[in-house]
């Protein structure tokens, strides 16, 4: 499974859900999957994608999807424990797991050496977990997650296969546009 195909699929079936994407290719590919006001692209803060999504899920009753990566998730395993502790019903974490740090030379990550992020999630008290390897199973898992109380934790095994062009994303505008789907836009001088 290619991450871009999976990203396009999730973007298509996400409805009005908020989608937060991990830095680098995950954000580029979400941008190239079609602009949505409820896409929150990140370009720094490695490791915090699912923490941001957790905060969103505790601020709204609407569905929130995190598109994280194995390298980033490994940097902040603690947030899986926080998700397991808070148990937001409206949060779905998808980890694109290529078992490597794809952007830094393709070094094998810990998930390529035996670390099983689905088992980590289970041990943190997240009961709705799944590992998928193809688009059909990914679609079934995400569709089910959208309809069922979470939190949901889906490990999507992917093969790295080239990168999309870097998206011309501006963080301040991304946040402003995203937030304005939840609150009244700020007025000049307010």
């Amino acid at each position, binding site marked *: 499974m290619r991450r871009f195909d999976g990203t396009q699929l999730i973007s298509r079936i996400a409805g009005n859900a908020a989608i937060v994407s991990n830095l680098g290719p995950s954000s580029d590919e979400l941008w190239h999957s079609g602009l949505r006001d409820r896409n929150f692209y990140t370009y*720094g*803060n490695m490791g*915090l994608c699912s923490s*941001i999504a957790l*905060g*969103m899920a*505790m601020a*709204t009753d609407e569905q929130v999807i995190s598109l994280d990566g194995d390298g980033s998730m490994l940097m902040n395993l*603690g947030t899986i424990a926080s998700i397991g502790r808070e148990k937001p019903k409206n949060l779905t974490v998808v980890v694109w797991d290529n078992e490597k740090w794809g952007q830094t030379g393709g070094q094998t990550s810990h998930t390529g050496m035996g670390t099983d992020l689905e088992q980590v999630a289970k041990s943190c008290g997240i009961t709705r977990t799944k590992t998928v390897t193809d688009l059909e199973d990914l679609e079934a898992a995400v569709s089910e997650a959208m309809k069922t109380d979470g939190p949901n934790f889906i490990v999507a095994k992917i093969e790295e296969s080239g990168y999309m062009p870097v998206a011309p994303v501006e963080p301040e505008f991304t*946040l402003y546009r995203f937030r304005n789907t939840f609150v009244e836009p700020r007025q000049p001088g307010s």
Partner: protein
Amino acid sequence: MNWAETIVKALKDWDTSLITYVPDISIHQVTSLIDEDPFFRLVPATREEEAIGIAVGSYAAGRNAAVFMQSSGFGNSVNALASLCIPARTPIPMFINLRGGPGEFNIAQVPMGQAVRPIMDQLGLVHFTLNDDTNMDKILDGAMKLCYANRQPMAVCLTQLLHGGKLA
């Protein structure tokens, strides 16, 4: 109203209702009040940069959020401030127990405690230091107003002179 109650009032006055934190014995005087108050949702984080991420997500989805931490944990959160909060312009009030000053007993707390405000200065972020509760309500009200007007993180550093600190 004591110093901890004054902080709680400022958070309410500025509709800041999601509080994420890493526990600290001194700021426990505030977070214990928050925990008992249904206005707030108190969310423990495993690490301070995670707390920043949770707060940013909450703000992005329309709920103002603040972070409580100790100065040692501020060191864990610097890249989250630099690469997330500042580029995206997110107003996150941070309440920091500033260790490493007068009365500190632990040598390991001094370097990071002394570095918090210079790092904030280097990042171009505003901070205030409270050594006592004189005019604390006005200072906090102004600090919160500035934070949301500037749409950048802001720190209120709470020293041992204010809260009594941790005894050796």
